[in-house]
């Protein structure tokens, strides 16, 4: 009897979890459906400065919403993707891009994984040769 109760309870919880996920997902879609795909594509590469480490596409902060609207307007005005990135970088710096551009500050960030890969493969190769 007790076991049965427990399993019913857990099924209920599972059900609630699934349902809440669906409702949340739908809410997100309705909020973004006024934006074109191109806007969303650009928005995915722009960092939300209010809630850092999230793209403005995912974010619902006021600034993220405004930036998405702005991107949409700039696209309608005939600006291309690069011009929009330049516009934002002139105002917010490279920091606004989720993917940092390659420059002297970030060169190690980009190449350290490859250096580690090369060194470790040399080591592993030597290790197995022995």
């Amino acid at each position: 009897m007790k076991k049965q109760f427990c399993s019913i309870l857990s099924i209920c919880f599972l059900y609630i979890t699934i349902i809440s996920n669906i409702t949340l997902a739908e809410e997100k879609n309705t909020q973004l459906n006024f934006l074109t795909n191109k806007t969303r594509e650009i928005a995915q590469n722009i960092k939300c400065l209010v809630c850092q480490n999230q793209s403005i596409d995912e974010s619902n902060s006021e600034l993220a919403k405004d930036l998405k609207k702005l991107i949409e307007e700039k696209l309608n005005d005939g600006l291309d993707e690069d011009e929009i990135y330049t516009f934002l970088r002139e105002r917010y710096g490279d920091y606004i891009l989720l993917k940092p551009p390659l420059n002297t500050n970030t060169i190690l960030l980009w190449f350290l994984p490859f250096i580690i890969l090369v060194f470790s493969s040399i080591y592993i190769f030597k290790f197995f040769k022995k």
Partner: protein
Amino acid sequence: MKSKFSITNFLPVILFSFIVIISGLVLYKLRSSSSPPSNITSQLIGKKIPEVPVKLANLNLNINNEEFLNFKNYQNQLFAVNFFASWCAPCRVEAPLIEDLSKIIPVIGIAYKDKDIDTKKFLEEFGNPYKKIGADSSGKIAIEWGVYGVPETFLINEKGDIIYRHAGPLLYNVFKSEILPLIKNKNQ
């Protein structure tokens, strides 16, 4: 074989410590020199004021208000531009310091995403230290200025160049250690 003491046995450890030290140094340099995420360096430092026109806030609540903010009126001296909003809690915190700042140099306010009636109430409650108040109801002016959250304070020199930006509420230590020296420098 049991304990062959050779350098190759320690190679992974050496390599690992090398990587840790290098990345530690890089992180330290990044933290101390450029942009800590809490206060991103403004791209507008050394540049002119963005040319986007700023409508004056309609504090008398007249029906037709087509006046614009003219930054040129202040450009023979150092002045400050402060983005604020009545709905923003840190703006209430910094209000007394903005008041102090306004006694030294002219301060222009820009009300970010605010209704004129709310701006008016805010100023009635906390005092009005501003020479003029612009309204940025859509948030577009803030984007032109690279503002990512209110409050933000800019200092503009007599040539109309932005020389300083502080993001977040103006606190006493920032006011004393960063803003006052800039003002003193100009006056000498």
